[in-house]
């Protein structure tokens, strides 16, 4: 017995594993009806690399909850939102999803990182808790089943209208710079944009893959300039947006840039004058001439209530809750359980609801929302609605007032 933690230790480990097994076997949740309060668990990336956007998503959702409660709730019920930080981390996000599934929350919401959403969705489907994803660049997130919805449109669906707009400005050729480690960028750079370009008769001079962690873009920039394109697609993310734009201008490129909604103001502001004339699609921007009235109304109300300008993330967070609110409307006085909520979401998905990012917002068979979208032009300091925009950016979208 003079060996510390002798044979007892492995035995203790076995006991531990046994109890783990027992714990998991009994882990089924009960779907109890919500009372006067419908609880939402909002999992958001409040810290870590996604924090800049994550904070806005959560703020938008919290604002929407306050707005609904101030107006007296829905069907005699009020909403309660519990915001949990997933720290831009997959394990933390899945952990938070598991906790939420076993809690008395009627619905779970998340937005932002697709690798997190993809890992959370199967848990939601398995535990049968409605899961409303605000944004996730991979479409497959809703494939797992009928408990999972996504309230944003695939960005690539806006690219046709964006390229037509550029073509009208005289663009006849384009180069594509993209982050090969980002799923959306890969699909858009290697499939969508080339297909659209071919259809429109725009020549693709170069398709150049980079990495998000790259910092020095002088080599790809010089190469792009050699092909002298009329426009350059910049499908990069985070600091790479800023540094790649700087590198392109340093290499002598002076034409327009276009790309993903990740090109938003946070990444373009530090690029200064170099970023003027950058175009990108967005679900929402804080502009008074937004082409749909519900968006402008949201902008005004949000500014009046908080004194801040809402971003597309704020609007997105608001619409996740608006989707839930519409489902609760349709349930009315009836019982709110996770299952009845799932059925009500399906009804609303087909009929559409009014949100900050569109009026109406309807969902396809794949439970992914169709929102009109707006083409943005960055003028060096603010996001403006790009000139020459006719109707919604999403092909085939018909709005109530647009």
């Amino acid at each position, binding site marked *: 017995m003079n060996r510390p933690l002798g044979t007892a230790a492995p035995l203790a480990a076995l006991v531990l*594993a046994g109890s783990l*097994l027992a714990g998991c076997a009994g882990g089924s949740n009960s779907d109890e009806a919500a009372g006067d309060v419908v609880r939402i668990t909002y999992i958001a990336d409040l810290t870590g690399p996604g924090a800049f956007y994550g904070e806005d998503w959560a703020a938008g959702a919290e604002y929407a909850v306050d707005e609904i409660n101030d107006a007296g709730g829905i069907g005699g019920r009020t909403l309660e939102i519990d915001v949990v930080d997933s720290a831009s981390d997959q394990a933390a996000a899945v952990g938070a999803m598991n906790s939420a599934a076993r809690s008395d929350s009627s619905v779970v919401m998340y937005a932002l990182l697709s690798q997190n959403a993809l890992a959370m969705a199967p848990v939601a489907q398995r535990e049968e808790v409605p899961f409303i994803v605000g944004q996730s660049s991979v479409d497959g997130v809703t494939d797992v089943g009928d408990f999972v919805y996504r309230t944003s449109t695939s960005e690539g669906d806006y690219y046709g209208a964006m390229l037509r707009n550029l073509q009208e400005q005289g663009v006849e050729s384009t180069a594509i710079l993209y982050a090969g480690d980002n799923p959306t960028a890969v699909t858009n750079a290697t499939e969508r944009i080339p297909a659209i370009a071919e259809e429109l008769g725009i020549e693709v001079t170069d398709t150049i893959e980079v990495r998000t962690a790259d910092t020095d873009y002088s080599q790809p920039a010089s190469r792009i300039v050699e092909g002298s394109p009329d426009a350059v697609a910049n499908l990069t993310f985070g600091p790479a947006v800023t540094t790649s734009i700087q590198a392109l201008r340093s290499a002598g490129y002076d034409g327009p840039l276009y790309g993903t909604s990740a090109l938003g103001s946070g990444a373009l502001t530090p690029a200064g004058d170099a970023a003027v004339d950058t175009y990108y699609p967005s679900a929402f921007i804080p502009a008074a001439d937004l082409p749909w009235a519900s968006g402008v109304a949201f902008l005004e109300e949000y500014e009046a209530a908080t004194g801040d300008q809402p971003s597309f993330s704020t609007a997105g967070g608001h619409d996740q809750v608006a989707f839930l609110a519409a489902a609760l409307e349709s349930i009315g006085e009836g019982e709110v359980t996770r299952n009845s909520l799932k059925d009500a979401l399906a009804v609303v998905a087909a009929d559409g609801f009014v949100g900050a990012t569109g009026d109406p917002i309807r969902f396809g068979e794949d439970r992914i929302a169709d929102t009109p979208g707006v083409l943005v032009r960055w003028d060096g300091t603010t996001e403006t609605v790009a000139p020459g925009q006719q109707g919604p950016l999403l092909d085939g979208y018909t709005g109530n007032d647009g």
Partner: protein
Amino acid sequence: MNLEIWFGTNEGYIQAALVTTLLAASVQVALRSGVLSFAGIGFYGVGAYGAGYLQVTRGWSFAMAALTVVALTLVLAALLALLLARLRALYLAMATIAFVLLVQIAALSWDGVTGGAIGLFGIPPMLGTGGVAIVVVAALVLSALTQRSGAGRRQRLLREDEVLAGALGIDVRRHHRIAFVHSALLGALAGICQADLLTVFTPENLGFGVIVSALTALVVGGTWHWAGPFLGACIFAWMPVWLAFAGEWRALAEGGLTIVVLIFLPAGLAGVVQLAARRARRMRRPEDRSAFTSDGAANIPSDSLEVSR
């Protein structure tokens, strides 16, 4: 608190702790024989993608897929061990880090198998948390048993004095190869388990960050003790929850706490557990003290004794 509810709400963190345990153990088994190899982290990718691909794309059963991946790992690891046999210490570490990054590049580029940047998703969960827990326990029991046996003593000699080990007739190269392959196997198992638990695996799940978290869990838990990987992995899984109150400064608090542990607990958390057990025993049987000290000192790394002084 009701245990069942606790397991339910903490299942995600338990899963993370289990997989990290295997990864940290993968680094540990190599290190115990004096091999600083991170190749296990590369095989984590091989295991996850291999099992995911065979099940999702090829429609194989879980058992067939897992067995195939394990066999593949054993062959690849043995070849890699031969190739890298000349390298020691940090040079081996760098070469294996390069291997991990090459696996990540393959994950990004080999679309047909790995799904490219999107990754693999829809991997059927077959093991579940309980199954993975059994894998982890088996790995730890094996580790604890070898640490206590003659093999454990040979390993200690290998990492402390290779020349002496050679002189005493221990086949140094063979031991290094075995340690390398064992490490790779644990890495591959971690990958199979991770893919099974998450049902998705993307290039984001790979890379230098995984090496860092495995090594951190190991060192914080206790580098030389079989329970070190598990203790460290648990701390890692739940630390974000405990420190959530720090808000946006949470990572700052995590870093600070890690540094405090590194400075004041030279033998990691396992050292504290050992010390507590020893104290308890000492109080019960004071006459046993001298016998304990001589044997105990030979049995555990010298560092952990410092805490008691």
